[in-house]
């Protein structure tokens, strides 16, 4: 059985707190999280894939289709990550990126 002493507890909570701080700061998260890595698809897409559509890159508006539902969110971090994955040469204004 693992023994939890005060030092290990502080170390654990310190790491957790640090992670939470990074996650709440998009700039820090972007700096720390690895960027997208292009890869070969491992298989076919699911029969009913979840699909995200960036409606308004400037407003960080994204629509997610899943099953027969459709919901729209504002998510700066997610939109920026998808834009990054879409590639530097992609023309991004208001026409949206899927």
């Amino acid at each position, binding site marked *: 059985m693992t023994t939890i002493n005060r030092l290990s507890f502080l170390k654990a909570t310190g790491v957790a707190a640090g992670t939470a701080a990074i996650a709440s700061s998009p700039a820090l998260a972007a700096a720390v999280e690895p960027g997208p890595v292009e890869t070969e698809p491992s298989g*076919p*897409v699911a*029969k009913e894939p*979840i699909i995200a559509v960036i409606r308004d890159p400037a407003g960080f508006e994204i629509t997610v*289709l899943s099953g*027969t539902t459709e919901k729209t969110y504002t998510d700066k971090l997610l939109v920026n990550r998808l834009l990054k994955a879409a590639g530097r040469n992609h023309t991004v204004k208001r026409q949206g990126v899927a």
Partner: protein
Amino acid sequence: VSSHREAPEIAQDPVADNADVFAFVSPDKPGTVTIISNFVPLQGPAGGPNFYSFGDDVLYSIYIDNDGDAQPEIEYQFSFSTSIRNPNTFLYNTGPITSIDSANWNNRQFYSVTRIDAGPAKGSPGQGGPAWGRGPQHSTVLGKNLACPPCNIGPASTPNYDTVLGPAAVHSLTTGESVFCGQRADPFYVDLGAVFDLADLRPFRNLHLVGKTLFSDPAPGVNGTNNLNIHTIAIQVPITNLTAKGSSSGVLGIWSGASRRKVRLLGDRKNGHAESGPWVQVSRLGNPLFNEVIVPLGQKDEWNAGNPVDDSEYLPHVQHPELAGLLPVLYPGVFPNLDALNKSGAARADLAAILLTGIPSGIIPGFQNFTGSTNADMLRLNVGIPPSSSPNILGVVGGDLAGFPNGRRVFDDIVAIELRAIAGVTYSLIKPSFTPDAAAGQLTDGLTPASVSTPYLNVFPYVGVPYDGWDHPSM
């Protein structure tokens, strides 16, 4: 045509193209209503090896409004699934198809029928088609794995089609409905060649602006849909299953639609494409010729995606139809009273009643199919009017209250009825001082049900046996 290829987008998507809707009190079972919705129009009977079918990726819906709010209280959904016995042959059939479960039939299609009802779940929670608002719905699966008949290929492949294969595809459900889904002869008749050649109707070609320079005498019409097939969805339902509170009387608003998933990813799956998102309506139909003749080209696709409850947008096109303005121009001197009516700027309240609200009581003795003031394109069927023992193909205009626009029967002469109405025949109903032009009451494209080569049936599904490819190799 009635609504065959009537809008730019749906003309490119025949599998989802809603071509006709019919609704009538069943003549042989007057305690029931039959609703028919046709898709995949203008099929050449010899169109093999991949003969026509419904779309496995299309949701087909029949909507019923029974309280006059132009929104559905009931929906019947039809979903299809194709099954291939042997993927290693190119053949539709590997021998004669002598029964609906024949082992020689390689490319079969099956379907399910689900009824959606408004209100909190009594059974399973359900999700209605795009015409529903946000209120709760619940669903009941009425039938599963129901077989469609094969397409009518020819006497070697599909012998005894009329006596064996067609009747075998009529399914009686335990909840009281009968259903049929499959290929039929197109029941609609229209002289397409004349209508779209500047409305140069052959019986009046010698009076037409251009036609009179080419022809000196009238000619009979030519049925442009003759010898062509279509895919029929037909359901026969006890009247009390459709009316509000199970009444044996009342007026039903009826329309149908076809929907596709919002997103489709092509070419990324070996056995089909991937789809996601809500159902989006791509085709709808209530009254025949509404989208085809009333709605202008720039709004037709939007109309297909919309719902009857929002149709007030199209009211100006009904009150001042483009065709009414064209008739006096195309037939100089033939429609002077219509011309004066057009120039007066008077709104065509008669057409608005026929197409958008129903006809109130007090206009036609013994008849009304009014559903309220909401302008909505729906077929309106007063189920309290019994079937006619001697039907008139001109329906209410011909004194037969059981015909269009009281619902619509498969043999009703829609082209003549609507031409005459637009030409002013029905305007005198709401303004008795108006005298329709003599020619208005004679307008026709020169066709009758006899212009359809295969006879209508006297029993469900009422639409005739499809033309076979062997005997109809070209149109």
